């Protein structure tokens, strides 16, 4: 009898443990996002906590920690906003000379429809004070960053819908629907890119869309061979977009016709970047490609980096900065792809990199911000957000 009781007790104790291990395996943790506006670096940590850091002193020889401008939002002891995968967006209402106060718009991977404890997944935080102006909800978790077109905030969701919300001059007023939501053929994880009044984005349903930013009507759609996760790069009338079928596509921005297709070694997850002459795109196989505007490789051979690249790289004056899942940051020559410098940063990098001049800001999956000076090839400072 005792033995039986012991068995039952062990099982009862083990059940919640096993179940919680399982839950953790499937749950979304977020991998944060960074945005620079002037001398301020806005940091949205993966768990959904926003911080503003003054980076004005980084241009000098100062290597001390950056000054925090306001108490992180939400404050200690309060619930975080939810898993964050996209960079915060900084913007303000502007119309007929009326300019509202600057907000940080942040979307989270929460679904208020599914969870009674969650009431919002879209937030506007005052950029000067770090206080919440409003919290709204759109059905479905959000992965990509919101986009601001005029006074319309556009956000795509995991339910496959693109929502447009009109922000008001009163920064505390809740946004209202700007146009009827646009229905895509799959989850919308890519942040929309705006060019000349058109929103370009991809879906996990293998389609790239061009949608009128004013009324949400479809201009064209083009089916590619795989899911699209990263944001498209729009340049000189061409949309460059990577897909999980291991291809990078160049599409005509006006018609959606395919100009060319470039095949890589693995998924093109991160958004491609450019210096105006060459497209730089990295894969989850850890390969960085330089492709000219006609779809031909520029470097004699692609450059292998230390691991999967999920974070969009940044182009500096002569070099390309690439961060990997293998806890390394690489500085590659733009001309031939040769590695000029690399540095280990202790954790994986999955959030897009941002830069100001030759300074690069990276946040790792543990929420630590790293400031690097690519010119002097040194780490300026690290700042833990947790």
């Amino acid at each position, binding site marked *: 009898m005792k033995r039986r009781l012991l068995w039952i007790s062990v099982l009862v104790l083990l059940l919640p443990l096993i179940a919680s291990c399982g839950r953790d395996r499937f*749950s979304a943790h977020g991998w944060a996002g960074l945005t620079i506006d002037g001398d301020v670096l806005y940091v949205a940590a993966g768990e959904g906590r926003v911080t503003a850091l003054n980076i004005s002193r980084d241009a000098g020889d100062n290597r001390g920690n950056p000054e925090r401008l306001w108490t992180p939002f939400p404050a200690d002891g309060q619930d975080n906003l939810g898993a964050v995968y996209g960079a915060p967006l900084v913007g303000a209402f502007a119309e007929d000379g009326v300019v509202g106060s600057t907000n940080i718009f942040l979307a989270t991977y929460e679904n208020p429809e599914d969870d009674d404890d969650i009431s919002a997944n879209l937030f506007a935080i005052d950029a000067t004070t770090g206080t919440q102006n409003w919290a709204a909800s759109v059905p479905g978790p959000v992965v990509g960053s919101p986009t601001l077109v005029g006074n319309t905030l556009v956000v795509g969701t995991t339910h496959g819908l693109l929502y447009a919300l009109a922000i008001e001059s009163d920064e505390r007023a809740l946004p209202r629907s700007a146009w009827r939501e646009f229905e895509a053929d799959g*989850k919308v994880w890519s942040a929309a890119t705006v060019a000349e009044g058109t929103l370009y984005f991809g879906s996990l349903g*293998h389609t790239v869309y061009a949608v009128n930013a004013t009324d949400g009507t479809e201009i064209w759609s083009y089916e590619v061979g*795989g899911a699209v996760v990263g944001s498209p790069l729009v340049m000189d009338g061409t949309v460059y977009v990577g897909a*999980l079928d291991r291809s990078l596509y160049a599409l005509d921005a006006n018609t959606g016709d395919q100009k060319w297709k470039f095949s890589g070694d*693995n998924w093109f997850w991160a958004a491609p970047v450019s210096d105006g002459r060459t497209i730089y795109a990295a894969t*989850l196989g850890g390969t960085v490609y330089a492709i000219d505007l006609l779809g031909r490789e520029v470097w004699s051979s692609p450059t292998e980096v230390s691991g*999967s690249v999920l974070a969009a790289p940044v182009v500096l004056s002569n070099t390309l900065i690439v961060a990997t899942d293998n806890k390394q940051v690489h500085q590659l020559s733009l001309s031939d792809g040769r590695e000029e410098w690399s540095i280990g940063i202790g954790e994986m990098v999955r959030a897009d990199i941002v830069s100001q001049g030759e300074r690069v800001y990276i946040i790792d999956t543990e929420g630590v911000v790293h400031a690097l000076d690519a010119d002097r090839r040194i780490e300026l400072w690290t700042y833990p957000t947790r």
Partner: protein
Amino acid sequence: MRPLANSLVLLYLLLFKNFGLSIIGLTVLIRIATMRLTLKQIKSTRAMSTIQPKLKEVQARYKNDRQKISQETFRLYKENGVNPIGCLGPMVIQMPIWIGLYWALIRVLPSSPENLADLSKLLYSWLSVVHTAVPVESSFLWLDLSSPDKSFVLPLMVGASMWLQQKMMTYPSQDPKQQQTQQMMLWMMPLMFIFFSFSFPSGLALYWVVSNLMGVAIQYFTTGWGGLRPALTEPPLAPISGQGGAAAIAEPAEELNDDEQRGSERQNGGRSDRAGSKAARRKARRGRNRGSQSR
């Protein structure tokens, strides 16, 4: 895990881009591939249970002579063609497959951006077609296969199918301790898996249901209703009063004959299993079946 993950995605493409069908298809294929091992396991378990009374007799007869007990036990095993680890061996061999399938399912279902990103490492680079299929569509019937089923339906199906399989695999034992363990397993396992089904993605629960139902089918076509037979055809067994509290135990020889009889019943389309519970009718059927077997 990689072959299984790639197979799941490939089946998804072949089965109308339906991941539910892909899970069902792969579970059926694996069950078929491991059929020989499963049959071996079932037969070993049954053979082991039939010699239990004789083993007990040996232990009682030579209780002061350990060496003699070992010798006689070994002789019994040999005479009856029983491998003492025969019922465990196949299970041990199958375990890596089940664990691999479990992890493959979790990895292929895109429950978060992290999961989808990690999937790229699992898919074969030479199998370009699987890269065009991701992320797999996770809706199936009323389920989102990447999240737990909140409707109670699938978890209850998991519990019921597991209980059914467990019950069929349980052979009556004369040992009260063994009976207690059997009873505990009969209820604890389904309850545990019901609990898991509320926590894990419903894709896994679907796999458990299909796997259990396949197990039930294999068991039925091998040994008949097994431990479920008394519940189907006989009134509940009266508990023995006293310390053990165990159920009444059928004669082992009778049990063996029951097993033989089940083979003939299946040949008759299993009608006799549904034919009621009166003892006289059972005995009459037994007689007929013995006759038909001897021919």
